[in-house]
């Protein structure tokens, strides 16, 4: 038996099953970025979205989040701390995307490839996570997945059109 490690964050489905089931539109599709967006403040906590996520990547705030002592100081000023009873999910660090996008707009230019890095990609030492605009054929991501026979999507048979691609192990088969 071979242990495999697969980081499974929200797949940002193009046809996200989690979206239509929310009774208050707390999760919806942002067509511009092709992201599944979560409006924490709107969530009432039916937890229906999480049940209908085939990847089960959503997590619920079962308790009020607590940060001991100085840990409060490290909270991200760009992101609110969500209360108990609210659904959480990976946002692809939308606050970074928005900030870079606004900066580019102010400077009157298009967003460059690699300008936005989500925290996970930034933190990964061997750069196993590559983030970018897949619709731009010149981007690093597009080049990696385009025509790559190692590429696959999780549960692609469900038709959720995930935005995340994985690359199968090559010669090393890991």
């Amino acid at each position, binding site marked *: 038996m071979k242990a495999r490690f697969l980081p*499974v964050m929200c797949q940002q489905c193009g046809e996200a*099953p989690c979206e*239509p*089931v*929310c*009774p*208050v*539109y707390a999760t919806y599709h942002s067509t511009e970025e092709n992201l599944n967006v979560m409006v924490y403040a*709107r*969530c*009432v*906590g*039916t*937890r*229906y979205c*999480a*049940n*209908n996520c*085939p*990847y*089960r990547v*959503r*997590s*619920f*705030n*079962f*308790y*009020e989040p607590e940060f001991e002592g100085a840990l409060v100081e490290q909270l991200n000023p760009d992101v609110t701390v969500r*209360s*108990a*009873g*609210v*659904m959480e999910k990976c946002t692809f660090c939308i606050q970074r995307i928005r900030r870079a996008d606004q900066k580019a707009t102010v400077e009157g230019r298009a967003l460059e490839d690699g300008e936005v890095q989500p925290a996970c990609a930034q933190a990964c030492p061997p750069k196993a996570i590559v983030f970018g605009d897949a619709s731009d054929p010149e981007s690093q991501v597009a080049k990696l997945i385009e025509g790559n026979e190692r590429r696959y999507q*999780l*549960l692609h048979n*469900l038709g959720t059109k995930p935005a995340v691609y994985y690359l199968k192990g090559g010669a090393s088969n890991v």
Partner: protein
Amino acid sequence: MSETSIEPRPWTSEPATTPDLEQQVEHARDAHLMLDPRPLEESNQQAIASMQRTSRLTWAVVVVLLGGVGMAAASWLIQIATGIGVTGLNNTIFWGIYIVNLVYFIGIGHAGTFISAAFRVLKFETRRPIARAAETVTLFALAAAALFPFIHLGRMWKAYWMIPYPNQRQLWPNPQSALLWDATAILTYVIGSILFIYLSLIPDLAMLRERTTGWRRVLYRALALGWRGTDREWSIQESAANIFAYAIIPVMFSVHTIVSWDFAMTIQPGWHSTIFGPFFIVGALFSGVAAVIMVMAVLQRFMKLAYFIRAEHFDAMAKFLLVMSFAWIYFYFAEVLTNWYGNLPPEMEILDLLMHGAAAPFWFLMLFCNIVVPVGLLWMRRVRRSPGVLFVIAIFVQIGMYLERYIIVGVMLGRPEMPFRWSSYTPALELIIAVGAFAFVASFYLDLHPRLPHHPALGGRRGAVVQWAAQGGPGVHERQVRPALGPAPGRELRYGRIPGTRAF
């Protein structure tokens, strides 16, 4: 206004005395189930007598049950203050006992109105005692069920966001969500059921108004809406109830279908099934009929209503229960067989968990309760006519149907597509709330039910007032007719004319 000029006709609790007459009465009641050869007044008194007694034992039970309700309320407060984490839910199984209870109580609530409406539509002569028992079950079960969506919510204080209300940001609920369909359907059903039940209660409430004193009289008078029992009122009430009966049956079918769609509309393995709509309806009727049988048995035993609720009624309901058991078996077999034959890995994981895995005890107990017990026993006429045995069978059916919902929610959710997310669910604090909900239904039933006429024969016979009027003659004050109606102190003139004698 003259004081009473007609001597009170004494009401006697002595039934027909001569043995010969007694036999004739029995014979007539055998031939026509609802034909009651006793004088109307006498059977009314009999029904009222059962309503006015609340024994010490009943009060003791109510106190214990209210204690259970109090514990559940305290648990809910703890959950609100702390978070959903006090339940056994986890990041794979997001729905648990609360949803099980919601589906279970709605299911019970369905049978009530359905039975009552179906009997009316089919013009069953036997309907009346069963119908009233069934309607009351509906009312209390729906009251309990309506609580659970709120208890379930992570932020229940924001529940009103699911209601379409005008707001500055023009935010609306999402009509694509099955939860919104669900809420709409349930609300429709609750309102429809209450109106339907109320409609059939009005003549009885009027009769009680005439026979009670004090606050009860005030209450019944307000509720009776000035019902006098004229022919015209009877025919209006009759046709209104018929329209409601025809309308509420499709509503009932839609409601439980939509409840099942909360599950079937998702892509969770085990839930995504086209058969869920009818399967849930059958399940709801199955458990609901069992609940009505339980209530009938309790009424018959403890409320001294054996005269009204007879072996024939139990027999009819037991046959209905048997049919529902067969229907449930049919649907469940179809569901399991297609999944098993299809052999898709996610579905097979669930079947494996049910047949050989940790959930096997639940699964086999469910099959035993839902199949072996009813099918094995209800074919016997002796069993069908014995309230005690039927009560026990009905309890088995309740356990089986509760387990069925538990398996759908608490077990199947633990097997999503991604194996690394597999999990299991052990209920924690929510168990107290679930038990509290049962106590809530039971205590309401014990406490309130005696205040409602539980037997529609109570004056619910057409022409009743006309009959009394004939004794008083036209133009006689109510007070003069009153002796025929029984005691009602301190009432002044209410109608200038005797109802029923007036041309409308």
